[in-house]
Every structure is written in C-alpha cells, then in structure tokens.
C-alpha cells in the first residue's frame, strides 16, 4: 500500500508539522516514508507544501507529481494547488473555515471541515493543523491515532506540556469528526 500525500498551508499554519508527524508515526508502525521539499512556483510567497509518501515497501520515485492520493489544504491561497495536485480516486481535505467556495472535483472525493473554527473551540486557532490531521486519520485510516499521538509527544512533549495537551485534544476532536464525516 502506497499513499502519496501533500500537506499545504500558509505561513504559520503548521502544514510541515503535519507532514513530519505523519512520517514519525509511520516509522513507528514500521512503514517507509519519504518527505521532499517543494519545488517550483509553490515555494514562493508565504505558502508551503510538504510532500510525503508512505508505503509498506521500499519507495521508488520520491517525488509527488500532481498525483497525491491524500491532499490537505489548510488555507484558501493553497487550495487550487491541492485541487490540481489530487489524483483520481484520491481525497482532498480542505479547511472550510477559510475555503468558502470549493470547486467541483472530478474523479476524487473532497472533504470540507471547518478546522479553524473547531480549533478555536479546543483552545487556539493555531491547532487547526492538528484538527485536520485527526480528521485525515479518522477518515482515511492512513495511520493509527495512537501512533500520531506518540509522535506528537515525542516532538513537543518535554518542552511545552500545556501546548501538547491542547494539540492532543485538537487531534481527537478532528479524529471524531473524520470518522463521522
């Protein structure tokens, strides 16, 4: 099983952290992962995209070429890139708090969740990335929630316990929404 992912957001939204957590959690589950930096025009400005490939076998091409089977758009400005980068049969998760007029997908499913609003209820809009990550896990079954939680503790646990707690709450809120959605 091989999943090609793209995690996109604007500056400060933490899309790179989502990608990193997916990678660390996948390694905990014994999977192979590759993460590449962005190339081309999308690396300009304040937006950023992290590409991740998760597989149970050694990974061939490390490059995600507009064939993401799992795409995440945290902001409006990056939505079009994700839309165009999604492969047939894939899933595009977008932040409906910010993307008000989603396009009509052709051949892939699209899941809108108001993750910014949901994050504010949990404690801070800055946890929108964790709400989204939880939703992705709940919906796709890409990785176990516990693996990501452990990766999260490993990454920010020791230094900021309060922040960790909020992020775990956000992750769980998203996970439940994803399972229901």
């Amino acid at each position, binding site marked *: 099983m091989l999943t090609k992912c793209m995690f996109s957001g604007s500056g400060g939204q933490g899309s790179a952290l989502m990608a*990193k957590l997916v*990678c*660390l959690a*996948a*390694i905990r589950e014994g*999977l*192979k*992962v*590759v*993460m*590449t*930096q962005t*190339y*081309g*025009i999308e690396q300009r400005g304040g937006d950023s995209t992290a590409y991740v490939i998760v597989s149970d076998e*050694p*990974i*061939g*091409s*490390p*490059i995600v*070429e507009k064939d993401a089977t799992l795409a995440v758009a945290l902001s409006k400005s990056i939505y079009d890139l994700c839309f165009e980068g999604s492969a047939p049969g894939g899933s595009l998760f977008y932040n409906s708090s910010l993307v008000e007029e989603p396009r009509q997908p052709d051949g892939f499913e699209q899941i809108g969740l108001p993750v910014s609003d949901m994050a504010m209820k949990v404690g801070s809009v800055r946890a929108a990335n964790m709400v989204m990550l939880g939703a992705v896990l709940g919906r796709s079954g890409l990785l176990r929630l516990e693996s990501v939680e452990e990766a999260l503790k490993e990454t920010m646990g020791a230094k900021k316990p309060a922040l960790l707690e909020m992020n775990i709450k956000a992750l769980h809120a998203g996970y439940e929404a994803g399972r229901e959605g």
Partner: protein
Amino acid sequence: MSQETLFLKNTETFAESMARCGVKYHFAYPITPATDVMKRTAVILPRYGGTMMQMESELAVSSALAGAACSGKLAATSSSGPGMSLMQEAVSFMAGAELPCIMLDSMRVGPGDGDIVGAQSDYYMATRGGGHGDYHVPVLAPASGQEIVELMPRGIRLAYVYRTPVLFVIDGVTAQTTESATLPEYHDYAADYDVSDWAYTGTGKHPKRALITGSYAHEDGFQMNERLRRKYERITEAEQLWEEDSVADAELVVAAFGIHGRMCKDLVRALRAEGKKVGSIRPISLWPFPQKAFDALPDTVRQVLVVEMNHGQMVDDVRLALNGRVPVHFFGKTGGDMPMYTLHEMIAKTNSLLGE
C-alpha cells in the same frame, strides 16, 4: 549506538552512516547542499571518539584529509561541486599516494558557482578522476537514504582493500530528501583492515617510510603508474555494481543512476502493467562503470534510453559500453525550479521511443 530507524535528511543519514561505520575524522567547509553532513558530524562524531574539523577552504579540507589519511585512520570529507573542484589537488595526491578515505559530493548544478539546486552534473569529474594525472577513484551513487547506509561498509572496504579515496555522489535533491532509514549498530569497519604495513606512524614501529608522489622520474614513475594501472584493472574486474529490473526480455532498457534510477522502478512497473517490454539498469558503481550489465543485455533489446539530471554525461559511458550494438537515446535537463524530468515525463519519453 544500537540499530534504529530514524527520519533524517539523507545528508544526515550520510553523517550517521560514517560515524556508525568507523569514520573518525571529518573535514569540511560549509556549502549547500552538503552542509547538513558537517552539522550532524559535529554533534555525533565525539560520541564515537571522533572529531569534525571545519577548515578554512576546501583546499585545506582535502589537504588535512590527506594528512589524516597518512595515519591509516579513517577520515572523510563532504562537499558539493565548487568545493569538489577545489579539492581535486589532494584527491589526485591521495590517489597517487594510495591513501584511503571517504568523500561525498552532494551534487548541485554548475558550472562556475552554479546554483544550490540539485543536479547530477559532476559525473564527469567523479568518474574521470577529477584532478590531474592518470587515475580513478571508485565512485558509488546511492539512490536513497537506506542505500547510503548499505553502501558505507562497501565504500570503506574499497578504500582499505585498494588503498584509494572512495567518492560517494548523490544528487542534491536526494541529498535533501528526508526519509526513513534503518541505521546499523556501531561497527568500526576501518579497524578490520591492517594498515601496519604502510601507515606513516613513526619509525618506532617500522623502518623509515617516506610518502613520495612527486619527483618520479624515468623507471620510478613508470612503475608507480603501472602499479596504479594494475590496481584499476582489478577494481574494474571485481567491483562493478548495479541494480537491474525486468531486463531478461526487455525491448527497451532505461539506464539511470541516483534519483532517476530510483524512479525507474515505478517506470518499469507502470509500463509493464500495460504489457510493454521495458526494463532498467541502475548503475551503483559509476566507476568502475557496470560494463558487465550492458554486455549481458539480451538480444531482445532494441534501444536504450539514458536519463540524467545533466546534459548528457553517463550517456557517454553507456554508448562506450554498448559500442554501437543498439541506438542510445538521451533525456535529461538540469537547473531551474524543477531541475529534473518527472516520472510522468520519463514515461512519456519512453512511450514515444516505443512508437506510442
């Protein structure tokens, strides 16, 4: 350190592999995209009783590397195109002096100062020796973090068995890719080789030894070059390394090293799924070039496509290896925002050659 799977930039994996396989001294000068190696060795080498020493130029780097190598202990360097150019003086020296060491060229686009974007533009420099004189250095081209780990003991073996600098080349895209790699338990591979018959450790341990690569005149110079020639013949015979996929009945073979070679796995899978008889060869030792892989190509092969992140360098070796047997095509680009052809473009090119 015990075996563990880490999520690292491949430059960092290179640093970890060196440290866990017995490299004790790492000399380097900052240059993108190789700097992450020295940042990591600065942290980890002391744990293994080693040191990263930042020098004031790549000239000084390679000279200090040569000085350390004279002791018989395992030393290394890492750099990128412009830095490698500067190092060639001492690389030539170490080849002539028959000193073991490990080097990494994390390749970026050139010529001149070039740009920090990844490339495979140093193939010529790597495989033709790099500096002045009639010599080669063994060149290994890992295509992933895990392969860096797997090739490090081999590189060290080549360095000590043949007493030669060994060069790893990795395109800057792969070098800066972050991926999972299972790193081995610590083992000092260098300690497996006896250096007491040549190392310059002082006359307390042996009669006077003098390392002289210059002032070779007449018969001395002839003998030195003959000794190197015989060594290179032994390496060429014994140390060719490559990976091949679906070659047995192939009509078209794609040859590529490093990242493009890695992408060939997906290319072959995709085209075979459509019933197209496509195979691939990924040279892992760039010198010695895997001539044997091309000698053994079956008669079904009608054409070969070489894909590189440059304007055509390894393609020369493929043409030499095939010596006119079948047409050899080239597909490559370098530099810019997307400094390589994508898998989809490689597939489209292959299809066009197949007449589709």
